[in-house]
């Protein structure tokens, strides 16, 4: 297993050279057992390179979220190979997956902020995952990220007092504060109006580019498809190589 911590990530944002951020080969997954068994993923192959933004679309229930949880080391891989940041997830232990998740930023459909923490403290929960960084440094880092997402005036506010778009931006800052080398996002714009949604994805893309961080984003939202470097469509547990590169 190679280093899971930030700092060793290649700074280049170009696609194609260097090791892939995510490399999925022949991935299949099932839910249920016996007669209730239902296959949700069938022989998936997928690569994501540093700095690349990949958008995953498809009808509900086609297995997008399952793929996201497998790449995010939230589930045990059943069949096939999933290499994330150089770490093979097939047969990985609970602890290995937990450590890997520290280098994977996640942005959820709901913002999933901690209700009892202020915006700044929420972001610092992300920064606190960084080893060897003093408290003050982590706090400053959190403030910088909140500034980067345009929320420097809302440091001390509880999620309760923030709008939907602001909450989602706090969630992005939190995900990025841990210096991830891969960002997974599940319909980050679902709860937002079109203008806010647009702003959030643009921000996401820009920050991911700057950090040299691969992005896999599940979305139904046709308005944001143009941020993708690559579009991937999924249907009935299979990927359809609609490698239409945009922008």
């Amino acid at each position, binding site marked *: 297993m190679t280093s899971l911590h930030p700092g060793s990530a290649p700074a280049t944002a170009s696609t194609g050279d260097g090791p892939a951020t995510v490399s999925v080969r022949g991935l299949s997954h099932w839910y249920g057992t016996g007669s209730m068994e239902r296959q949700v993923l069938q022989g998936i192959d997928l690569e994501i390179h540093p700095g690349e933004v990949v958008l995953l679309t498809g009808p509900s229930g086609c297995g997008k*979220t399952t793929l*996201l*949880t497998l790449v*995010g080391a*939230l*589930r045990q891989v059943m069949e096939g190979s999933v290499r994330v940041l150089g770490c093979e997830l097939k047969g990985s232990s609970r*602890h290995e997956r*937990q*450590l*890997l*998740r*520290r*280098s*994977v930023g*996640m942005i*959820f*459909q709901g913002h*999933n902020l*901690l*209700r*009892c*923490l202020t915006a700044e*403290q929420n972001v*610092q*929960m*992300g920064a*606190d*995952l960084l080893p*060897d960084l*003093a*408290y*003050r440094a982590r706090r400053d880092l959190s403030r910088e990220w909140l500034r980067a997402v345009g929320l420097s005036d809302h440091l001390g506010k*509880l999620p309760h007092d923030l709008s939907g778009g602001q909450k989602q931006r706090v969630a992005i800052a*939190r995900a990025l504060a*841990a210096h991830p080398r891969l960002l997974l996002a*599940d319909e980050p714009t679902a709860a937002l109006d079109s203008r806010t949604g647009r702003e959030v994805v643009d921000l996401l893309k820009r920050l991911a580019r700057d950090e040299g961080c691969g992005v896999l984003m599940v979305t139904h939202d046709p308005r944001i498809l143009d941020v993708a470097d690559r579009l991937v469509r999924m249907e009935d547990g299979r990927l359809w190589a609609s490698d239409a590169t945009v922008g």
Partner: protein
Amino acid sequence: MTPWQGRRIPLAWLLLTRQPMRLAVALAGITFAGILMFMQLGFRDALFDSSITVHKLFDTDLVLLSPRTKSSISMTGFPQRRLVQAMADPDVTGTTPVHWNLLLWRNPKTKGTRSILALGFEPRDPLFIDPAVTALAPRLTQKGRVLFDDQSRDEFGPVAKWFREGRTVESEVAGKRLRVAGLFTAGASFGADGNILTSRETFLSLLPNTPSGSIELGLIRLRPRADPARVVKRLQALLPEDVSVLTKQGFLDLEMDYWRSSTAIGFIFTLGAAMGFIVGCVIVYQILYSDVSDHLPEYATLMAMGYSLLTLLGVVAREGLLLAIFGYLPAYAAGQVLYAVIHAATKLPVAMAADRAITVFLMILVMCMGSAAMAMRKLGDADPADIF
């Protein structure tokens, strides 16, 4: 890196303090349980302590008792000759025969009667360690005089107050008129609400049916470097079966054991404390369980971010620890106040003993940490895969 530099967001603290209502309920529950434990254990210890309020005062190394004596409220007589025989031992330097009985004292103000502990002794013999009693004892040589315990309960009348004001205080004990010749300090106990000292002559006039030569307690003083345990052995061999020899500590233990084992009182108070403990457990468990349940998606998010289950268990454990500390402090303060109130009202020797303060804290700690451990099982339900 110093620990201060390594510190993290105090999640446990924030989880508790950002939900003030829930925190208040939790702290009220823990404080209530703590106060209940302080009261019950305080009463229990006060009972055992107060049962030997008088016993502790005797100026003695060994005592003689009737083997049938089981406690201070049922002292049985034995022949005073045994005390004289004990003088034969080379280590024995002095003895004091003591009469001991509960008699009816008439309140000089309300004329109501109440049971009081009366001790009769030869005024020239040493009785109590307190030199004030020794100094006052000669006043008892005149017949019909008593020394009155100024710590006796108020139901015996304003005797001490009147006496200090210089009034002549007279009362009736067992139907005989007596005059208070002085005050001494002992204290009420569960067995006796008040105490008086008299000469043997006066005592026997109050209880004319006492068999001659019979006493209830014999005090034996030893040479300074004598070993009490060995003298007890020698005296037991020397004296017949109709008397038992005890060290002073054995005398205290006999009395405490009576209240501990022969009555349900110790059990009842311990049970009361256990009830407080259980009520506290239920409250803290409820609070922590619903806290974990309510925040389950947030805990799952933290796990998805890469926090370990152990870290999150630590958060719940710290919540338990904080609840224990902040629930204990008001319970301790309330305990102090209530002990003072109870002492003023009952004259029982209740006070905040260090060992009880620690015991109650440990019980609250076990209560909170145990409940936290139970609530942690709910954390196992936090599956980070479910939050997408």
